[in-house]
């Protein structure tokens, strides 16, 4: 049976999900979204040196064109009825092996639309910014090629309509991330960080592969339509297993505990990469995966609990790590982990949280990209210095960067009316509705966020000058500040706009994720106030520690918690102790066992045969008469034997 037809007929009967229609008209052009950046990547990577001078323009143009397509599609989608906004765009049949059929087709619905706009929108801004940031890099063309490749893969990830096709995008973004983290390959640290990111992600991919394999066992297919339609009849044990496998995958891609260790090292990449891939889009793919698989998680309570636990643990871990880092990018990376922890937590709450997870994901995309680009702008002006202890008082030297960074700061710690206030508050509310412990974790996280972000702000832009002697801080060129201003504006209005404009994001996503409202144990006003108080308290503590006192240029030893946080809460130490060292020992001993044991046995057998023949060949003396004697003796023996046999 044709998968497309099957998809439609299955989707048509399931009540929880909206019907998926075969795309026609404008929507059948959805493939352009992916094709444009992919074309850009192909041109830039295969085009050779001819494109060195114009490459960045090609790179930007294709992504902006993709954004325009996305905008057109969005407007067209607004024109459709609320429950009729899902379109299937079949492209070609991928394969059919032993009854397992996969079609390459795209699914454009409200959820993927939100992601497409985020990816192409923020992606375009960061592309433009990179023109300035990478201006003096001789491999800029290649940089843009990789960025385009990333955008194409990420779009495939969110537009896929089959888990196996999603996996193509999933690995594609992983590859782009690998290439971009290691972009400055001549630095061994960058090359190591790139490899580490890929390998840790592969551990997550094990989960993905096993999840799809389980889907094959349970549903006989990996297409969304079939899988989601079948969940109601599937055994809960299997759903939990699939859910946990998907969670493992999400942990890898989104740097969640216990696979969080790669993200901090990933800051070796150029800063626009950190902004686009390791803050705004790719690392949120895990959240997308879980929200997309809502139909599975809705019926898999244990898996959902695991998601909540992972989210809560990571949100605290990331925040604590963020507090102790002196490298501005690593502090922001810890913050990214923590914020994605929030999203995971929300996604683990089920229909009550899915929409808020996506909401926070989008606002986070705005303000975190803003913060990272701001950090990049600072580095650009400070000879690529990243140590915040060498910054200070940059407010005057970089007014635009300071202003936009401050907006991002206010947004992330959740001061009304900036974007983060709305999205984080919704998650904290939902968390309290789920349970007190979860709620308190989320609340505590908000306080720590305020602390470390205030710390970053104070150490970078305020206080005294602690610059290196040769530093001459200056504002970045316009091509870099305009994207900052755009993202700053989005960080201001993005929250309220998305929450309230035209029904808001919750209504927009409702047909995909479902909706559920839980009653709060405490009045809303009390909760909001206590959240704000926690945030202000966190900021105040930071001000006491870093604003009122001069910041030492060399980091003090600090208490045990600070030391632990500086070392990423011993995540690397644990990996090293549990996997790396035993693994190295294992490979070494296996190499030894191979040469001595497996090969040794066989070579030994060959040697034994050889030794035996050396001994036996001594009988061949070359003396004819001794041979004759042997023959005679042999003949004699034969005769004797015959006589003996005949005797009785």
């Amino acid at each position, binding site marked *: *049976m044709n998968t497309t037809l*099957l998809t439609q*007929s*299955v989707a048509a*009967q399931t009540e929880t999900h909206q019907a998926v229609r075969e795309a026609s008209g404008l929507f059948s052009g959805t493939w352009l979204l992916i094709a444009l950046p992919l074309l850009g990547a192909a041109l830039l*990577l295969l085009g050779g040196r001819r494109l060195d001078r114009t490459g960045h323009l090609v790179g930007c143009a294709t992504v902006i064109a993709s954004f325009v397509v996305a905008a057109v599609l969005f407007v067209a989608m607004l024109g459709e009825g609320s429950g009729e906004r899902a379109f299937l765009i079949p492209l070609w*049949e*991928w*394969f*059919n*092996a*032993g*009854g*397992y059929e996969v079609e390459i087709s795209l699914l454009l619905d409200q959820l993927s639309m939100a992601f497409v706009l985020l990816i192409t929108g923020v992606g375009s801004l960061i592309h433009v910014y990179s023109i300035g940031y990478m201006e003096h890099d001789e491999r800029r063309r290649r940089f843009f090629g990789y960025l385009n490749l990333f955008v194409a893969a990420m779009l495939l990830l969110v537009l896929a309509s089959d888990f*196996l096709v999603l*996996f*193509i995008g999933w*690995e*594609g973004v992983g*590859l782009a991330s*690998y290439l971009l983290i290691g972009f400055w*390959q*001549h630095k*061994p640290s*960058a*090359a*190591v960080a*790139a*490899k580490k990111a*890929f*390998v840790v992600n*592969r*551990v997550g*991919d*094990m989960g993905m*592969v*096993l999840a799809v*394999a*389980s889907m*094959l*066992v*349970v*549903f*006989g*297919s990996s297409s969304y339509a*079939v899988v989601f*339609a*079948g969940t109601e*009849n*599937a*055994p809960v044990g*299997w759903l939990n297993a699939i859910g946990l496998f998907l969670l493992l995958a999400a942990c890898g891609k989104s740097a969640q505990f216990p696979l969080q260790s790669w993200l901090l090292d990933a800051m070796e990449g150029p800063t626009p990469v950190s902004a686009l891939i390791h803050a705004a889009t790719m690392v949120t793919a895990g959240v997308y995966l879980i929200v997309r698989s809502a139909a599975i998680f809705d019926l898999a309570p244990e898996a959902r609990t695991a998601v909540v636990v992972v989210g809560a643990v990571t949100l605290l871990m990331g925040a604590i790590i963020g507090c102790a880092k002196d490298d501005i990018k690593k502090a922001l990376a810890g913050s990214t982990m923590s914020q994605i922890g929030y999203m995971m937590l929300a996604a683990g709450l089920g229909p009550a949280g899915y929409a808020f997870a996506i909401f926070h994901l989008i606002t986070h995309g705005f303000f975190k990209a803003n913060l990272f680009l701001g950090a990049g702008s600072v580095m650009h002006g400070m000879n690529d210095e990243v140590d915040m202890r060498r910054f200070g008082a940059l407010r005057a030297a970089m007014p635009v960067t300071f202003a936009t960074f401050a907006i991002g700061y206010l947004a992330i710690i959740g001061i009304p009316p900036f974007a983060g206030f709305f999205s984080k508050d919704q998650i904290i509310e939902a968390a309290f509705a789920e349970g007190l412990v979860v709620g308190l974790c989320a609340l505590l996280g908000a306080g720590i966020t305020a602390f470390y972000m205030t710390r970053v702000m104070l150490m970078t832009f305020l206080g005294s000058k602690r610059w290196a002697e040769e530093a001459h801080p200056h504002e970045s060129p316009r091509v870099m500040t305009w994207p900052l201003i755009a993202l700053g504006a989005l960080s201001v209005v993005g929250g309220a706009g998305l929450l309230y404009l035209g029904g808001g994001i919750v209504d927009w996503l409702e047909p995909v994720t479902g909706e559920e409202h839980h009653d709060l144990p405490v009045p809303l006003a009390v909760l909001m106030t206590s959240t704000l108080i926690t945030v202000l308290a966190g900021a105040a503590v930071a001000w006491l520690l870093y604003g009122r006192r001069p910041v030492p240029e060399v980091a003090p030893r600090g208490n045990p918690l600070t030391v632990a946080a500086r070392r990423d809460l011993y995540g690397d130490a644990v990996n090293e102790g549990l996997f790396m060292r035993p693994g190295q020992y*294992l*490979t*070494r001993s*296996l*190499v030894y066992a*191979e040469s001595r044991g*497996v090969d040794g046995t*066989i070579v030994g057998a060959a040697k034994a045969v050889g030794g035996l023949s050396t001994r036996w060949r001594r009988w061949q003396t070359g003396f004819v008469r001794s041979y004759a004697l042997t023959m005679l003796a042999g003949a004699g023996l034969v005769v004797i034997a015959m006589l003996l046999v005949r005797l009785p």
Partner: protein
Amino acid sequence: MTFPWLTTLIAVPALGAVLTALVPAGRGRLAKQSALAFALLTLGVAVAVIAQFEIGGDRYQLGEQYTWIDALGIHWALGIDGIGAALVGLAAVATPIVALAMWPEADAERRDPKPFFALLLASEALILTAFLAKDLLLFYVVFEAMLIPLYFMIGMYGGPQRRYAALKFLLYNIFGGLVMLAAVIGVYVQSIDAGAPSFLLMDLMALDISANAQRWLFLGFMLAFAIKAPLWPFHTWLPDAAAEATPSNAAFLSGVADKVGTFGMIALAVPLFPVAAQDFAPVIVVLAVVSIVYGALLAIGQTDIKRLIGYVSISHFGFIVLGIFVLTGRGATGATFYMVNHGLATIALFVIAGFMIARRQSRMIADYGGIQKPAPKLAGAFLIAGLSGLALPPLATFLSEFLVIAATFEQYRAAGVIATVGIVLAALYVLWLYQRTMTGPVPEENAGTRDLGRRETMVVAPLLALILAIGVFPRTVVDVIDDGVAPTLAEVDVESPPPVVSVTDLVVEGNDH
């Protein structure tokens, strides 16, 4: 009478081998050109043959059958099925690429290059015959005969230990081959007992062999194929051969020639002895999983590039054998598809490693570093080849590896889970190799490394393009393989369990409302 396409397919490289061997000594260039021309001609014939293959047609198509030794029922019998078609395609594509890659290597050797090219074509002819033979004795004869050219190819060209490696290769394979000979005779005796002496595969597959006899015969066949493939613990000849042979020869050896082993498993051992295959499947699955993990771990521990790639092959052969012996259509299709993809990926890896070795004159990983800067194209090609080795979608290897893992998970949960560990280890050995050779600061002696030249690009580009194209549009290839796998596994009594939740039921149910 129809045109004997398959005999032509074998005759062209065989003739090429003879003509190349007749090129006067000292005219190395002419020998190379003649070998390349005949390899390309073979590719043309192979394309013509595969184009005539009809999905859903007879099991063996384009069949030819001439009596060879009447008294013993031995025939020159050829035919092509989906599995054979896929592998014929691989061999035909690989040979000209290997010939072209060997071109500069041959000049670096102090020997006359002519014998290598003649032997290459000779082994191509024998390998093609193995993929097409529909007579067990014919298969056996070429299975053993291909050791001769391969032995000389390893022993005459390559590293300082090449004689040792060649002898090891030969002894291992002859040992397996002789045990198999006993089993071949055993099968023939079974056909005599049944009253119809024959070596034709179709006749032998129709035999009703007792379970006990099947077990012994199966073991005889499997030993030979497990050595050839190679499967842990019969693998130790491969790293030596891979390290000592010239890179393009190593590519040909593990990319093409070894496929005869896995081909034998799926096309002979399983359909001839279905009961025994089922009995031994769990054991072989365990060995295959051990191969996957063991090969990967040893690859991580290597210091010699070519040895490393040799162990990577062992790990990948583990996947192939695993796919075959889960004995479901999905697994076998995945495994056969894997054979093709592994061939392409391994050839790419070996050949590019060869380019590096030709520049630096060292096989030791520690001697490299920072190559990416002076030679970005070389590094890029190496990375793509490596990524296909670690099965990154949408490169072709991904799909085959996924099908194998999914099919295994379906039948043996634990084995499926352990096999996925292979994908993590694959990332480690490939990317660590890339990191150590291509990235980091450029040492002085590597600063002048040349980038890919024209001929080198001509070798690598078609391989990588093919890997990508098959990955994005695998449908035709998978359909052809699927068509061959279905009858092959027909006798084996293993079915994929139906999905726990059948969606087709849902649809029917839904329509009732």
